[in-house]
């Protein structure tokens, strides 16, 4: 893989010349992506499984639970969403545990574009960001003008963060330039907004594709690369997260900026969240252990984190009805 170490700027600044050179044409982009090291499936899954045996106890567990809470993008993406539902979620997001002000607020609330204004309004005065999905989420199957209008609409209605989906059809058909262009166009619209790019790894299937799509998204200007829409299975899995964490680490080394990773879909237990944090810590590095670099897209995970937090502090579990359902 080409390294820009001789021409990279100080950490955090993009080596624009190198990026421009390898994205200048469809064929050079294809050659670059094909030239990335492959991912051995057995090896990747073995490493993820091995890291899942880390035993996180006591103070390190409390730290992990609180950190995970601060990394949650509390999400509702249902056809039946209403302003009332979104308002309730925002209330929870601001103060997840009213009995314990030591519990941090979550990172963001994530909704469909037509509800982001409601979310923004309900989150005023809090550090919680209003995030919106965009670009014909979840399938991404619409014409480019429609998808860009979708993104513009979210931004116009106050989204602090935008979670876009890539065109998986174009990716699988090998039209990498098209995928890149779309990301760049959305980046332009989201100039002052945090952009997360959803790869929908369940549809990409192979870890090689996950690595290539990760690089493609980062070259396109993503602030975060995200595993899934949460609308299909499989969604986030530890080996997929491992591959993406290695990609952001390699990108930081080669190009400069530290891109974030968001895992979404099917993460319900605090135990799983802690396992993901171990992956972050050991695959990407401790610099990624904050909400600016790692997120959980989840809904029911928050209550399990709160329950485990209470258990760590008091030594006892309380019942699930002690935690609000929104």
């Amino acid at each position: 893989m080409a390294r820009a170490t001789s021409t990279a700027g100080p950490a955090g600044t993009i080596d624009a010349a190198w990026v421009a050179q390898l994205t200048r044409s469809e064929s050079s982009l294809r050659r670059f992506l094909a030239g990335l090291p492959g991912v051995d499936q057995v090896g990747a899954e073995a490493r993820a499984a091995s890291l899942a045996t880390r035993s996180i106890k006591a103070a390190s567990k409390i730290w992990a639970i609180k950190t995970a809470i601060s990394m949650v993008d509390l999400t509702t993406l249902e056809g039946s969403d209403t302003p009332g539902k979104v308002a309730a979620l925002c209330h929870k997001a601001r103060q997840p545990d009213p009995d314990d002000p030591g519990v941090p607020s979550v990172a963001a609330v994530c909704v469909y574009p037509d509800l982001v204004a409601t979310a923004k309004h309900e989150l005023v005065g809090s550090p919680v960001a209003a995030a919106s999905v965009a670009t014909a989420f979840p399938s991404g199957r619409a014409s480019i003008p429609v998808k860009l209008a979708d993104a513009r609409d979210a931004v116009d209605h106050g989204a602090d963060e935008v979670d876009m989906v890539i065109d998986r059809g174009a990716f699988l058909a090998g039209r990498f330039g098209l995928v890149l262009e779309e990301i760049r166009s959305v980046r332009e619209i989201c100039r002052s907004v945090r952009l997360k790019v959803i790869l929908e790894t369940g549809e990409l299937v192979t870890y090689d594709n996950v690595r290539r799509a990760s690089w493609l998204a980062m070259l396109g200007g993503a602030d975060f690369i995200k595993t899934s829409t949460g609308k299909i299975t499989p969604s986030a899995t530890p080996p997929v997260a491992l591959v993406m964490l290695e990609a952001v680490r390699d990108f930081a080394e080669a190009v400069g900026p530290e891109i974030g990773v968001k895992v979404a879909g099917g993460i319900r237990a605090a135990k799983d969240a802690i396992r993901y944090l171990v992956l972050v810590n050991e695959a990407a590095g401790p610099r990624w252990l904050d909400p600016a670099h790692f997120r959980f897209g989840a809904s029911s995970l928050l209550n399990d984190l709160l329950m485990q937090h209470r258990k760590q502090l008091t030594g006892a579990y309380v019942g699930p009805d002690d935690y609000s359902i929104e």
Partner: protein
Amino acid sequence: MSWEYSPAPESRAGIGLRRSYGLFIAGNFVESSDGEAFTTINPSNEEVLAEVAAAGPHDIDLAVAAARRAYEGVWGTMRPVDRAKYLFRIARLIQEHSSELAVLESLDSGKPIRESRDVDVPLAAAHFFYYAGWADKLAYAGFGPAPRPIGVAGQVIPWSFPLLLAAWKLAPALATGNTCVLKPAETTPLTALRLAEILQQADLPPGVVNIVTGAGATGASLVANPGVDKVAFTGSTEVGKTVQQVTAGTNKRLTLGLGGKAANIVFADAPLSQAIEGIINGIYFNQGEVCCAGSRLLVQESVADAVVDKLKARLATLRLGDPLDKNTDIGAINSAAQLEKIRVLAAEGEAAGARRWSPPCELPARGFWFPPTVFTGVAQTDRIAREEIFGPVLSVLSFRTPQEAVAKANNTVYGLAAGIWTEKGSRILWVASRLRAGVVWANTFNRFDPTSPFGGYRESGFGREGGRHGLAAYLDV
């Protein structure tokens, strides 16, 4: 921002560690006839764990005689399907006691609990399950319609995988109808003795398995004992040669599992992240105290710098410490003697001009510790490239073409194992068919299975353990 993992020690409760152990002969624990004993310590803190009887020549005679009586009286004539039942029972008991066995193994040997729990103990049970299945199917093993056992097997094992190697020796020998006298290593007798208690629990007829603890002299006695029909030795090449000399001119059958200097070959198109994990696993699993350790990294020159950089970055994340902590990656070196050997060879490497690197590593004050170490700028002639170190020391050499990789990998007196890292399937087949190594791993390393025959070429020994091939050593064929 850094996230320190809190200590997560595995509990020592209920492991059934006794203050002293006798020899296991004819189904009972007995004192040694001259009252000799030695102590076994925890190499991570030098704490004395237990006192263990030391078998002298007379004890060996008693053990071999007990094995002979059991062979002629009950085991050699038992219906194979009944032998199988004992072996299945032993396998099940190992599983039931797996927690205790894993803790005991880590205490006595210094290896991390994660390894003894996840690798050593499960594989030990698996070997008993596997060979239990062969006991009544020997007619289909390819050795004729009714292959017969040999008789009494004298078996000597090292301290690298105390329980696992006991299983590798006992399971096939018993399945084929032999009886055994097993000598565990001097520094790691405890899990073999715990296994003896499990054999009692399984009601194994007295004398079918005898365990004689002691040091080198005990092993020498056993190997030379005229009542032993078959010798199986796993240990250093140096001692293996002595064993072969002792058994020459006798009717004793012999198999040897000796040392190695395995080459882990990384091509430019290797799946890089997984190759790094494979290199790490290859040389730092069990602190490199493994006969098939990938102690030579042969990296294609075009990616050598990138691979070494990534390797060093990954090495810095390895956790060295208390073997009983569930998050420990690198445990203690097995003994003071072994630590000294590693130090001497590492110093030789530096003296020869190779560049030595270890990540910053806080070593505990007591116990035997060596940080994971990598040497670059190693020449093919350096001692650290040719001699088995049996420690967490990796020697890095480079090659240009697949032909050169094969030539360099084979340029050793050993021939136990090798690893190939490449995304190109045709290259895996091409290289593997040319490597003189008994075990070749492709895009993985240190993967073991009771169905897979393990053993070496040349000075790594002869004979295979595991699989159908593993029966051959214990059949009169």
